[in-house]
């Protein structure tokens, strides 16, 4: 279990106050709440896009909050996916492997493994802009996990998909988390995500854990 502490920030018209929050070592820990409840703010603090005094994140004896962003070794999938549009799917995934300093041979093997797991073979050599919604999401997932992150962070990852595709995408995420054996934090407002994936659910409202 990892422990988030002292996540407090005053935005003026909105206050985030999370004194303590436990994230499981296995499976999906979900942070659930309505729009404007502070979910994405928590996400931004966890990945290091924002900082505040007193914030600590104890992960197996190491305080991740004190580490610079790259050293936190997190896998991230944003709501908007944020694939690099000028790169192919393969280059997008390889970028993350390079960034983590994974040797070329190992990166190739990992890519083959993930490509099989996520059924990406047909998409690998296409530009990100030419991928379908489902393919884009699978590429984002492969990119997030190729560097063997400590934790996978997912910010509303299914909200851009239509209802039919969501069920399929949830299964894919579940498959990846099981295969890679990494804990995941899921930020969502969709109860369907909780039913399908979450092992533990924490509710947030108006910046506070309920």
């Amino acid at each position, binding site marked *: 279990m990892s422990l988030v502490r002292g996540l407090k920030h005053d935005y003026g018209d909105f206050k985030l106050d999370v004194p303590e929050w436990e994230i499981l070592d296995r499976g999906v820990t979900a942070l659930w709440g309505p729009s404007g409840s502070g979910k994405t703010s928590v996400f931004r603090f966890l990945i290091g896009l924002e900082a505040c005094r007193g914030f600590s994140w104890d992960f197996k004896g190491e305080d991740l909050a004190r580490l610079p962003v*790259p050293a936190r070794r997190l896998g*991230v999938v*944003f709501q908007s996916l944020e694939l690099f549009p*000028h790169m192919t799917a393969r280059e997008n995934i390889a*970028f*993350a492997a390079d960034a*983590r*300093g994974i040797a070329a041979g190992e990166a190739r093997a990992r890519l083959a493994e993930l490509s099989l797991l996520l059924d990406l073979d047909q998409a690998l050599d296409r530009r990100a802009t030419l991928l379908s919604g489902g393919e884009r999401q699978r590429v984002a997932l492969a990119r997030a996990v190729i560097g063997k992150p400590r934790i996978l962070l997912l910010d509303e990852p299914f909200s851009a998909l239509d209802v039919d595709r969501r069920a399929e995408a949830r299964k894919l995420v579940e498959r990846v988390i099981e295969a890679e054996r990494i804990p995941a934090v899921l930020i969502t407002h969709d109860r369907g995500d909780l039913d399908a994936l979450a092992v533990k659910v924490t509710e947030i409202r108006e910046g506070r854990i309920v």
Partner: protein
Amino acid sequence: MIGRRLAFASVFICLLSPFLILFVRFPTWSPPPASELAAVFGFTALQAALSALASVLIGSIGALGLMAYPGRAWPRMVALAPNAVPALLVILAAMNVWPGIRGLAGIVFAHVLLNAGLVAVSVAALLATRVAGLADLAYIEGATRRSFLARGALPLISGDLARLFLFVFALCFSSFAVPLVIGGSRATTVEVLIYEQIRVAPDWSAALAVAALQTLAILALSLLAGGTARSPIGAARGSPLLEWRPGVAFALAPAAIVVAGLVVRLPQGLAQGLGPGGPWPGFGGELPRLLAGSAFTATLSGILCMAGLVLIAFARPRGWGRRFLLGFVAPSSALTGFALLLLWRDTGWASLVKIAVGITLISLPAFHRLRWDGALDALSGQVAVARALGASEPRIFARVMMPQLWGTCAFLGGLSAFWAWGDFALSAVVGERALTLAMLAHGLLGSYRLGLATLVVCAVLIGGSLNFALFWGVGRVFGSRAQT
């Protein structure tokens, strides 16, 4: 992180350098008599107010015309053209279509030619984004165009129109090229006064005092105007109550007048320049030197501008750094030229370097505000992901950002080069004799040889366009190489 801070510090110092040079080199100021200052500031404010008022009125009618062409880019591009080309073209066109143009009316006319199209496109964007939905609703409920514009649209965008007025007022207040050529002896603006104190009087400490007062005035204006003015070209959406097809004539008239002004005088210029008395009587031997001077200055300006933009991209300023760049008011042409003049006295190639540096210092903040900041902002999500994935800053810069930015960067560099081909205002302060084709055109305008001036300006236009195309092509090559 240190690299990014150093990059930002170098941009910060470069942008402030004209002010720093002036304050270091001239610790004492002695302003001209208060009565003279009051008269000059009063006239400057008057011409700026009339120019802004006329531009906003004509531009607002033009906006209704542009709204009748939703989703079409060409009317907006044509409307913006007078604001995008060097002021030299517009001034010459104004002089060609209005013989004997002088004084307050002439200045206002030229300023309206320069700015009315920009206002039209900006107001059209405002209407499309802020009012169109409401207009559809009012249309369904049976409102007339007149009543909706007066009681629905106008109250909704009156604040934005006021800011637009102040924005154009600030542009006209610090305008140099137009009053320098068209103003005449009884229509002196602050910029012209600074120029006269430098080049005619010469009283440099008085020039500095006037420049400092003008800088404060522009700073106050930019704060009132709300700081940022972003690129107004956007997807426009029409609505029956906001469309008035004849209005497009108001939006496109400035561009049409500029083209007509050049075309009408070109045959005379060709006859004078290339006819039996030619070629280029009186200055034929100078042409290769002036052409080389223009090409050198423009290319260097484009390169420096690109370098500045790349540095800003690497620095990726946030917080106050970003606010500084968005709110920074570039020093006027006269002040920048004055600061560069103080560095060292010379008459040759070093002057051309100074002109290129000056144009870069003036254009960089505007380019950042209009396009570059938005381009960087659009990549912020990708940068956040790349950082979270463990990528280093140089890797993010080289592999994520620049491949996507080269096109915009080269486009803006090309625009800077294009403007540099047409600059004569800053050049007139820095250079003691004609160094470029634009300076030659300025001299010809001063002696009312409008035919030859038109011919030279056409050469400037062709040279600037070729230079722009060169940068654009280089940007495409860089971009595609970076992506493979």
